[in-house]
């Protein structure tokens, strides 16, 4: 459900096999798009990137689906001064598991997003103002339907595979349901076919932080403004759910920050100072890290998009209409691999396994693999030769 936060990217030590400098592109559809909720917008734009070459038949494409706060930039760098590559750079590139020498890999920012794709911060042509909360309620299925229109327009006739983690995994599943003949392989990681009450609860806390920030202004905040405090809190809280107790302990422990603001420098631990202004300054490294995450997020993410996309996550439930996941997945024809991670407590292994057992009950070709990790939900983003081998084998089979 997360974008990656890879360590600073050093071009000098980059492995051969980087996709290098990439440029985002925009696909704009001038055809009206009707959302599942019944409302229509006159057209939309999706921002995307591509790596590798599409073959003449248009059949070697792999679609990468991003998680909640991710975007279209999943590999390579935009310029030589970039500190970080795309969020899944470790798995995409020449010779990597998503091998751009063989496959045409592409990823778009979802409908409802805010990084070049049409969403609440886009201008409503009817009013000349941002859509804000007048943007139609967007669903995972809407995101997938918009992607289908885009891929068809850029010449992709068939997908070799669709790959994604977390919300990306939900899109993978929905692709299999909505467009069963479009892809040969579905590969979903750290995902669920239906969020638990706990996952919905975390999203609700995030939304409330935004909705109760006075600067949210019923969604009508100006560009560059808005509920910055609320959005940062939402992000901080969500970020905790992507990690694990063990990984946070290893990364931060109870270490305190080395440098304190001069006025708060006390020989005693924070909280014992008599000055209330400084009692709650950053004391622990983990606090500093979360504050950084929150701050970085508000500079690149739109609060209304956060509300819409978390709502889409919470409402996703393909089994609801048919009464069971087994009946829902009857439409799927692609071979499926689902990968769960032992330490993922947001979308834990059993939710990943449930997708596979439903597919198997329905007589489909589906596999389940579980990686032993202690990195929590974000495990799908981290470097793991075992995961790479699995992905490579699945794509090659």
């Amino acid at each position, binding site marked *: 459900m997360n974008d990656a936060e890879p360590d600073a990217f050093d071009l000098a030590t980059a492995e051969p096999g980087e996709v290098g400098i990439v440029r985002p592109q925009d696909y704009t559809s001038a055809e009206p798009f009707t959302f599942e909720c019944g409302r229509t917008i006159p057209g939309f734009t999706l921002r995307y990137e591509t790596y590798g070459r599409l073959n003449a038949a248009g059949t070697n494409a792999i679609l990468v689906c991003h998680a909640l706060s991710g975007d279209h930039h999943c590999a390579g760098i935009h310029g030589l001064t970039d500190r970080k590559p795309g969020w899944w750079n470790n798995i995409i590139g020449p010779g990597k598991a998503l091998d751009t020498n063989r496959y045409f890999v592409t990823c778009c920012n979802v409908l409802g997003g805010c990084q070049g794709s049409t969403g609440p911060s886009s201008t409503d042509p009817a009013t000349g103002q941002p859509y804000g909360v007048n943007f139609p309620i967007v669903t995972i299925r809407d995101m997938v339907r918009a992607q289908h229109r885009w891929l068809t327009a850029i010449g992709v006739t068939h997908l070799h595979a669709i790959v994604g983690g977390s919300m990306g995994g939900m899109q993978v599943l929905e692709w299999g349901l909505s467009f069963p003949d479009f892809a040969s392989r579905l590969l979903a990681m750290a995902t669920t076919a239906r969020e638990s009450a706990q996952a919905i609860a975390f999203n609700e806390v995030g939304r409330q932080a935004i909705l109760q920030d006075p600067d949210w202004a019923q969604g009508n905040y100006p560009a560059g403004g808005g509920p910055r405090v609320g959005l940062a809190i939402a992000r901080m809280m969500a970020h905790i759910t992507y990690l694990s107790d063990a990984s946070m302990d290893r990364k931060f422990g109870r270490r305190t920050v080395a440098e304190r603001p001069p006025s708060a420098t006390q020989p005693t631990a924070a909280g014992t100072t008599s000055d209330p202004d400084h009692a709650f300054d950053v004391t622990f490294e983990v606090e500093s890290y979360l504050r950084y995450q929150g701050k970085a997020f508000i500079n690149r993410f739109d609060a209304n998009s956060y509300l819409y996309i978390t709502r889409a996550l919470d409402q996703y439930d393909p089994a609801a209409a048919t009464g069971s996941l087994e009946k829902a997945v009857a439409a799927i024809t692609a*071979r499926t691999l689902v990968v769960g991670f032992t330490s993922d407590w947001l979308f834990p292994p059993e939710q990943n396994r449930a997708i596979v057992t439903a597919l*198997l*009950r329905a*007589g489909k070709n589906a596999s*389940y*693999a*579980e990686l032993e990790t202690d990195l929590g939900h974000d495990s799908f983003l981290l470097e793991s030769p075992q995961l790479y081998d*699995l992905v490579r084998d*699945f794509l090659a089979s």
Partner: protein
Amino acid sequence: MSLRSNKRTVDLQVITDWVTDGARVLDLGCGRGVLLQELAQQKKTQGIGVDLDIDKIGACVRRGLAAYQGDMMSFMAEFDDNHFGHVICSRTLEEVDSPATVIAEALRVGRSLTVGFANYGYWKNRLDALLRGRKPRNDVFNTTWGESRPANPLTIADFEDFCASHGYTIARRVHLRGDWKTPATRLPNLRAGYALYEITR
């Protein structure tokens, strides 16, 4: 061809012969999917393998097979009665915690259960225990104690007694000698190194 792969061939062929064309097959302890692939090719089965080891699941995935990493009991609990035509436990039962429970559950989700195991009652095993006072080590059990996996070894007599006492029907049986190739028809509990059974409720 090594002795080991020779053994594998006969074992595979007997099981394959017993499986119905196009059946749904569940292979418990599927390893790298050799048997499932054979069944898919020869009998056009719709197979699924279960194993605990991610590398083995990866190998199955590479072969294009369906494989599930996890506990076989909780996996089987997800399926209705008689969902599978055949459940196969090829050299698996010796390593499970509660063989009787696994067999009962396998016979719930499957119409038949195929079991293959090295016969602990094989005369060479008896000699090893009796004369040398050691864990058997010979052409049937070829690892030392230190490199052996947890095992709950069984004999042909044990298994047949077990089936009789639980009311399971032995639909087919094949006993092979120490080379795992030549049939051992007389005194199988003494003379057979390897046993294959198909049982039903």
